[in-house]
């Protein structure tokens, strides 16, 4: 009996050994499926596929059955996407960020910190990259310097570094002490799937509401208006943003004004953010690395504006190779060049963009004037340029310094040379010259230092100069024969400028994976000089000489200081909180304003694919742009809050839900309510240039309430990306002095839809389409026609007139706005391995003439009618880019 049992046991053992010996690994089964079923697998090389497969034979199964059986008892999840099978670790294992259990904590004897940077192969630091311990799921994100720090238990860890558009990288790290490690990732534009739960910066995973990040690839799409890719026009596609006047770079976020957006370029504030009256934004997309756009849950480290923060970071430059690009577009051209100064240590990045229409306009006017028989000679010249230059030096792993310079300028010159002859001997020569120029010069010197594996700091010295200048000169020379009978000269000059000197210190402290503490201090010394004027006129004739000169200037020196602290706390696998405070101080003319702005955001994530968020933020703004137009004009000027005004402030409540029903589909819905106080509007000016001398006594103080809901969705499959957003919003304002009740803002676009698609059609052709729809802008039109009174007495008069009455501001809504933009890139690689890109773009592709404004006019029969003014047709543009 015993023998039989032994034989049976031996037999079973043998059989099992045979079976085990014959069992194939999951990797082998995948290979078999790939060959037999002609399907492809996409997976991370770190997946544990070398484990044996112990299930039934896959031979007679359908593909779904085979996959189900193959991965049934494993940690691997699959999804079928056409001919592709996507494999990844089951989400609950893979990417949950959680606190170790108490038992685990008891077991941990030592914790060590892994810190370092995420970079691409050229040494470019990657912002918002995710660093994750694959075993525990603990994760962190790189900051704006590409730095990360994560404290883990002693032992070996498999650390993954992931970044959108790049291949993931995993490193095995044996933590016996603090370790410094730089992850070097390789760009891969053909990644088929983005694992959203693996990206801590995705809206699903971040704690903040209302944050959108844009990389270079998001800005440099295949479509570009007038062939120049544009940062602000990219932001305009976001939900909750109204774009203002067509073609311009308006950015009206959650009902806020255009001056309520904080634009930072490498940490330095930018006042003038566009060229050509708003046609182009001032950011050269060739050098833009990353844009963090906040419209809701502002972190405490940002302050100074009410409605949005646009934090633009530029490329440091390639540390190893020289390369660059030329682009020639319809109205402008650009050159970008980067490379090492000392290989691996010091790099430079240089970008220059310049409009070139003046190169044609100068000879065109010269030819016209030469051929024209008129005595009137006209010359007109306009150009803009922007230049970005950056030098970065790496001293060692802990220290790095960079100098970033931005210069942007617009210039417009006109000259009118007129000769008039009267009779045979009298001649009058009149020369009128106008010179406009406006722009920015910004310089930021950044020093980055890693004090310890957990503490990283940025020290930034900032200089900002913004100027707008206009000079007009008129000379009139009257001659009788050869005798000068009268000579007059008139000139006036106008200049508005701002000089800011300041520093920013920001510290990034990560004591544990559950706390990410940021704190710092900003200080800016503002020198506002709005409208410095000079006027001189002289008249010299045979009998007398008169000379008049006048000059005036305005000076508003002010100091602005803020300190902030915030902690991003991961409470457990479901809850995270970002709590912070921004305290600011503003001093002008002996008066000091102090404000404390609390910031709070929290996230509840019941499942890996679902999160809920809420945030409360308050903001204060001490600087204002005085403007009388919805266009960005060089005559606009910035001024500080003065001692007789209140700083503008706002508070905003945002809640949202973020859902990932499928790996490639992310849906989010956010609701917001924002209330702004002490909004300023120039009260009594109707020209281009409201007077600066008493501006603070001539502005109206008002309030605004802005609320709405935003729905965003993005879907990516294979080589196709689809994004959509819908905004339902109400924007209302009230200025008692202007209108005693609430009225709708001009850009109160009740519904806004934006759908964009990006398609890699073939290896060499890619396309982008964007369809925008929004409810029409509001305008004020007259509603009644009445006799006008005789003032001041109101007596009857024979000469009485009638006129229109405007009963309510923005009382009429223009027709709905919609347009389609299309763009195509045609790539070609030369035998010298230079990539050439030919771009064709169509703005307003189906040529819908969208209303710009409307006015009430009168027909001959006396009836009034509304004339709709719409002028922008389809605008095709082309560009040619060579990368070298």
């Amino acid at each position, binding site marked *: 009996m015993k023998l039989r049992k032994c034989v049976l046991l031996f037999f079973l053992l043998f059989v099992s050994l045979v079976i085990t010996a014959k069992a194939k690994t999951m990797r082998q089964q995948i290979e078999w499926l790939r060959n037999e079923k002609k399907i492809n697998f996409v997976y991370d090389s770190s997946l544990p596929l070398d484990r044996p497969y112990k299930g039934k034979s896959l031979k007679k199964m359908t593909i779904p059955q085979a996959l189900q059986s193959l991965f049934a008892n494993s940690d691997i999840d699959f999804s079928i996407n056409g001919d592709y099978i996507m494999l990844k670790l089951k989400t609950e294992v893979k990417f949950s960020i959680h606190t170790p259990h108490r038992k685990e904590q008891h077991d941990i004897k030592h914790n060590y910190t892994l810190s370092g940077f995420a970079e691409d192969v050229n040494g470019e630091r990657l912002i918002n990259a995710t660093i994750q311990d694959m075993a525990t799921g603990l994760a962190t994100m790189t900051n704006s310097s590409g730095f990360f720090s994560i404290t883990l238990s002693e032992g070996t860890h498999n650390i993954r570094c992931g970044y959108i558009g790049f291949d993931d990288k995993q490193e095995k790290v044996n933590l016996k002490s603090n370790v410094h490690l730089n992850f070097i990732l390789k760009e891969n534009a053909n990644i088929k799937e983005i694992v959203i739960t693996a990206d801590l910066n995705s809206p699903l995973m971040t704690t903040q509401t209302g944050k959108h990040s844009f990389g270079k690839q998001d800005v440099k799409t295949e479509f570009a208006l007038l062939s120049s890719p544009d940062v602000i026009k990219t932001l305009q596609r976001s939900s909750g943003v109204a774009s203002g006047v067509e073609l311009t770079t308006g950015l009206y976020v959650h009902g806020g004004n255009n001056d309520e957006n904080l634009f930072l370029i490498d940490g330095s504030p930018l006042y003038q953010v566009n060229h050509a009256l708003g046609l182009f934004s001032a950011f050269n997309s060739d050098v833009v690395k990353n844009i963090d756009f906040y419209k809701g849950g502002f972190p405490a480290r940002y302050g100074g504006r009410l409605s949005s923060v646009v934090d633009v970071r530029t490329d440091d430059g390639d540390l190893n190779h020289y390369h660059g690009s030329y682009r020639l577009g319809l109205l402008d051209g650009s050159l970008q060049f980067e490379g090492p100064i000392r290989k691996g240590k010091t790099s430079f990045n240089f970008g220059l963009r310049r409009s070139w229409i003046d190169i044609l306009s100068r000879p065109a006017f010269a030819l016209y004037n030469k051929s024209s028989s008129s005595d009137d000679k006209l010359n007109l010249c306009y150009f803009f340029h922007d230049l970005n230059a950056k030098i970065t030096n790496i001293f060692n792993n802990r220290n790095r310094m960079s100098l970033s310079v931005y210069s942007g300028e617009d210039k417009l010159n006109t000259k009118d040379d007129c000769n008039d002859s009267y009779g045979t001997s009298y001649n009058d020569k009149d020369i009128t010259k106008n010179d406009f120029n406006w722009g920015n010069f910004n310089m930021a010197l950044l020093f980055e230092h890693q004090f310890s594996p957990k503490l990283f700091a940025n020290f930034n010295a900032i200089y900002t100069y913004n100027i707008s200048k206009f000079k007009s000169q008129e000379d009139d020379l009257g001659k009788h024969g050869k005798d000068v009978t009268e000579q007059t000269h008139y000139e006036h000059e106008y200049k508005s400028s701002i000089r800011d000197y300041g520093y920013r210190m920001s510290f990034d402290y990560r004591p544990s994976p559950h706390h990410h503490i940021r704190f710092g201090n900003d200080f800016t010394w503002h020198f506002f000089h709005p409208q410095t004027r000079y006027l001189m006129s002289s008249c010299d004739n045979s009998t007398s000489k008169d000379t008049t000169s006048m000059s005036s200037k305005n000076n508003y020196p002010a100091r602005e200081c803020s300190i902030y602290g915030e902690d991003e706390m991961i409470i457990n696998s479901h809850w995270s909180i970002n709590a912070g405070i921004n305290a600011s101080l503003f001093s002008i003319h002996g008066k000091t304003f102090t404000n404390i702005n609390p910031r709070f955001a929290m996230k509840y994530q019941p499942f890996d694919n679902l999160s809920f968020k809420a945030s409360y933020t308050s903001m204060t703004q001490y600087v204002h742009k005085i403007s009388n137009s*919805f266009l960005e004009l060089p005559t606009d000027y910035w001024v500080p809050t003065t001692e007789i005004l209140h700083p503008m402030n706002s508070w905003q409540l945002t809640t949202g839900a973020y859902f990932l029903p499928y790996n490639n589909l992310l849906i989010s819905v956010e609701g917001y309510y924002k209330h702004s106080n002490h909004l300023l509007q120039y009260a009594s000016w109707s020209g281009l240039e409201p007077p600066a001398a008493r501006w603070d006594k001539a502005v109206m103080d008002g309030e605004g309430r802005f609320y709405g809901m935003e729905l965003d969705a993005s879907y990516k499959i294979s080589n196709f990306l689809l994004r959509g957003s819908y905004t339902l919003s109400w924007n209302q304002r009230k200025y008692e002095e202007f209108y005693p009740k609430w009225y709708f803002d001009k850009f109160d676009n009740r519904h806004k839809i934006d759908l964009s698609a990006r398609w890699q059609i073939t290896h060499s052709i890619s396309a982008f389409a964007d369809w925008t729809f929004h409810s029409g802008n509001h305008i004020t039109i007259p509603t009644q026609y009445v006799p006008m009174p005789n003032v001041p007495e109101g007596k009857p008069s024979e000469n009485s007139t009638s006129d229109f009455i405007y009963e309510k501001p923005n009382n009429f809504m223009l027709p709905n706005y919609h347009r389609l933009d299309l763009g195509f890139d045609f790539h070609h690689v030369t035998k010298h391995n230079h990539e050439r890109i030919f771009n064709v773009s169509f703005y307003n592709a189906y040529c819908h003439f969208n209303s710009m404004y409307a006015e009430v006019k009168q027909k001959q029969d006396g009836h009034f009618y509304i004339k709709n003014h719409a002028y922008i047709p389809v605008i095709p543009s082309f560009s040619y880019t060579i990368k070298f």
Partner: protein
Amino acid sequence: MQKIIYFILLLFMLVSCKDDISINTINNSEKLVVYCFPTESDTTYMQVVRSVPVKNYTNTVDEKTIDNAEINYNVNGKASNIEYIGKGFYKITGLQKKGDNISFNVQAEGLPSVSATTTIPESVNISEPTAKEIALYDQNSESTQKFDQVTATFTDTPNTHDYYAVRLLVKSYDGYVKVSSKNETYNFPDLKTYKQNYYPDPADTVTFVYQDSIYNVAEINRSSEDLLSPISEVDDNFGFSNESYQNMYIFDDASINGKTYTLHLNILSNISYGVSTGTQYKSYDFGKAYQVQLIHLTPQYYYFLKSLNQIRNNDMAKYGLSQISPTVSNVTSGLGLLGGWITSQTDWVKK
């Protein structure tokens, strides 16, 4: 590639015209319009008309004056006498003085009744008028021109926010200079000719003969007076207008509160005034005298005038590029204004 070309062609086939906007989408109806501007006087006028909604207006629409309005006009709660004088105007008699509270309630057939209240403000004295000739560059003529600069001084009431308008009245004379010497008497037709051609002789008797005069409210060049928000050179270059409704130049005391302030008002020296009578024109260029009127306005009156100025001058808004101001009214359920005011004026100062 072929598909893309087809797609583009298809898009161009979708070319659409611009949208039509119907004036009938403006949803409004007739309203009662009342203008009344009480001051320290025994006679006040009130104009009562119906508004015409823009969608209903034609050349054939009759004047919408109302001659049978039921008006209840009260001064400090006491009703005043009202008399219809034609063309929608009513005359209210009864002495009113500064500080009086004025209210009205007006009813007309088919329209909701309207009401409004105001107070006649305190007067602010203006005095010490002077006039001198200065040279300024004039953008309109693009040359240096001679201006008469008239100044006058007033003291703003402290601790209150006050609203003002200033008017410059010009009294233009018709006349001549009569020179009587020992043997003869001759006339110079105007002062300029007299000053250029007359060589003084102690034996002569010179008489300035003022025959007739007319009054005009002058258009002021504001370049020497910051309170009146002078137009900037840039705006002037671009042709923006800065006219004041019926030459009443408004300002407030935000920057001069409680201070004594001298206004500097410029008027072109060579401006000519005259009267047309049928086919004839008679100029009054013999001489001029100036008077500055300082009008203390209620806030409603000030904002009403301000809105009229903004609407008239805002060329940007006409092109949808700027915010246009609504027409201010303090008439509940209707349109128009009940605006209190009081004026003080300087003596006449001759040029």
